[in-house]
């Protein structure tokens, strides 16, 4: 009997589940999407506290360690297992003919890794000065998990800081295109007629321009003396100039489709005003589709920023983004000799895939009533 009661209350829960609850139920079933979502949450969490998670200051040069390879984290030494992980020091050798530096592990120097260590000072969110890092080694040693670049800067820390710029530029850019897309797509779909035709033609024109040359033109127009923060917003605006078109089309199409639904007519006959119909019926109905489209638009923003910066037209050093970091990997020689310079590319791929997985799951869940 109790079993039966449980079952009915479960059913009742399903019956009184709102759209978002139903979407969440459906989304949960999509394993790959949950996986992508988890990865992204971890990434975004780390970027929020990137100063804390990185091991040192991103501008600090270790002139003794130029192009140092990633240091491996060890648990075993000649004496066996240690609970506390450690890294070995690096021994540098310079080839007298080619001047090529090679590094080998110096087994005599052992730097244990400590958690919550005090090291380089930084300001958390540019507000709170602190020097606590998640992990690190005592100041006599070095730890370069992802190696160093041509100036001997720690790439692990630089990658984390780059993630902050690259991941946020996707969000900000999409936010801008979301606003543009909603307003222009909404006007286009709701009023129709000439306005609709003009907007649609503009969209078609914008979409027909090859994106990379367009971005290049616009980026070249950004004044070179702008401070990095201005450039950052300049780039997001450039990216969203093309990005809004797709969203505007989705908004317009959904609006046209929903306008014909019977429940909209029912509201009209009940005496609802246009404002009420839009805010109570139309907007909630296509919000879920918008979220899907936004999720799928973010990776193209991230890729756009990366390609622009890679080409030297986007963000410029000293700002770090994944694209800026990848600038160092532009020639075959450095890639061949220092493959760890490509690690930012790996992050870009993982992020874009994770967004696509999540978007895929959201798309399946977007209409839980089918």
């Amino acid at each position, binding site marked *: 009997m109790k079993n039966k009661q449980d079952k009915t209350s479960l059913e009742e829960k399903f019956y*009184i589940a709102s759209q978002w609850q139903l979407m969440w139920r459906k989304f949960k079933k999509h394993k790959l999407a949950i996986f992508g979502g988890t990865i992204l949450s971890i990434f975004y969490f780390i970027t929020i506290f990137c100063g804390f998670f990185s091991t040192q200051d991103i501008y600090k040069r270790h002139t003794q360690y130029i192009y140092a390879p990633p240091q491996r984290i060890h648990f075993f030494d000649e004496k066996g297992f240690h609970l506390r992980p450690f890294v070995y020091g690096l021994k540098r050798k310079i080839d007298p003919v080619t001047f090529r530096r090679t590094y080998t592990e110096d087994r005599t120097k052992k730097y244990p890794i400590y958690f919550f260590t005090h090291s380089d000072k930084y300001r958390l969110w540019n507000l709170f000065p602190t020097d606590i890092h998640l992990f690190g080694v005592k100041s006599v040693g070095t730890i370069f998990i992802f190696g160093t670049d041509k100036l001997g800067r720690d790439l692990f820390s630089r990658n984390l800081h780059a993630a902050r710029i690259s991941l946020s530029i996707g969000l900000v850019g999409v936010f801008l295109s979301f606003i543009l897309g909603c307003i222009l797509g909404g006007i286009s779909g709701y009023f129709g007629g000439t306005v609709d035709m003009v907007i649609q033609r503009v969209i078609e024109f914008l979409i027909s321009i090859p994106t990379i040359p367009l971005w290049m033109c616009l980026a070249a127009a950004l004044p070179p003396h702008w401070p990095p923060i201005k450039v950052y917003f300049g780039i997001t605006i450039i990216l969203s100039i093309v990005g809004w078109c797709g969203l505007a089309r989705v908004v317009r199409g959904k609006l046209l489709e929903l306008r014909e639904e019977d429940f909209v007519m029912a509201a009209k006959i009940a*005496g609802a005003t246009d404002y009420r119909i839009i805010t109570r019926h139309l907007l909630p109905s296509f919000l879920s589709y918008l979220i899907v489209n936004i999720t799928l638009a973010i990776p193209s923003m991230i890729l756009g920023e990366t390609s622009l910066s890679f080409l030297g037209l986007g963000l410029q050093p000293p700002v770090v983004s994944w694209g800026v970091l990848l600038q160092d990997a532009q020639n075959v020689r450095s890639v061949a000799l220092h493959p760890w310079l490509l690690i930012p590319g790996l992050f870009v791929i993982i992020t874009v895939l994770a967004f696509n997985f999540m978007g895929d799951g959201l798309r399946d869940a977007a209409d839980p009533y089918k």
Partner: protein
Amino acid sequence: MSEDNRKALLEIKNLKKYFYIEKGFWKNIVGYIKAVDGINLYVSKGETLGLVGESGCGKTTLGRCILRAIEPTGGEVLFRTEEGKTVDITQLDKEDLRLIRKDMQMIFQDPYSSLDPRMTVFDIIGEPIVINKIAEGKELKDRVKDLVKIVGLNVKHLKRYPHAFSGGQRQRIGIARALAVNPKFVVADEPVSALDVSVQAQILNLMQDLQKEFNLTYLFISHDLSVIEHISDRVAVMYVGKVVELADTEELFFRPKHPYTEALLSAVPKLDPRLRMERIILLGEVANPANPPPGCYFHPRCKYAKAICKNVEPEWQKVGTNHWVACHRAGELNLRGVT
């Protein structure tokens, strides 16, 4: 108003709705579809007028034009308000239209798309009450609860969303929403065609009970002749945007005067294998409303057609008490009704 329809709650005069066919980049108008083409009807208080016709004949468009859910192209829709004033719905401005809609509501065909899936039953039924500021707070709750009881749903289920309900129950929710503002006149657009056979009867019975209880007037639109016969006091038969015959239900079913009505009646499958009889099989299909034939629209399919039918549009003529028909040969033909 004319003599026959002094008690009319609603009178439609020469109502027209044309849809324009646009083509090309500049949306040039290359033609139009006469979905509703000069219709005259009246509906008396407390009766059910059945509107029957095949797909594309314009019956749904007519229903929506009456409520001005879509804008008619021309004609008048005269509605008698409670104070005894007669207003032309087609001439009302936005605000007056909103007010008059309290008296006129609609029940939709598709129980799935007519309820917003993102609102609870309470919000759906309560929406017209809130919009028209009829009640709020506890009063609103009581009113919605009453409505739910009236249409035979469980009061406990008010917090549920539409996806929790079957087609028949959803249709009950739709009916409750239509009744929320105490309308006088309800357009029911194929309210049972999307439902299972065993549920159809429940909804038809409910609609009849409600009509008695609240003295409702129905315009009942359907393609199903047996449903139409069951629920209507009078029936109008539509063909390609025009009403071709209008009569009291019994009169129309047993003594049809238009060949199209005769053919429709004959085409309905009888619920009795012993009555398999020779049917009148109409040739071809319903005329294209964008390019209707000259003369009487029905003449290419009509076995009684004569030369005059091909050239001259038939007039709307009275052939008996409450019986009108648009056919040149109405006087001479002896047509077969239901046997």
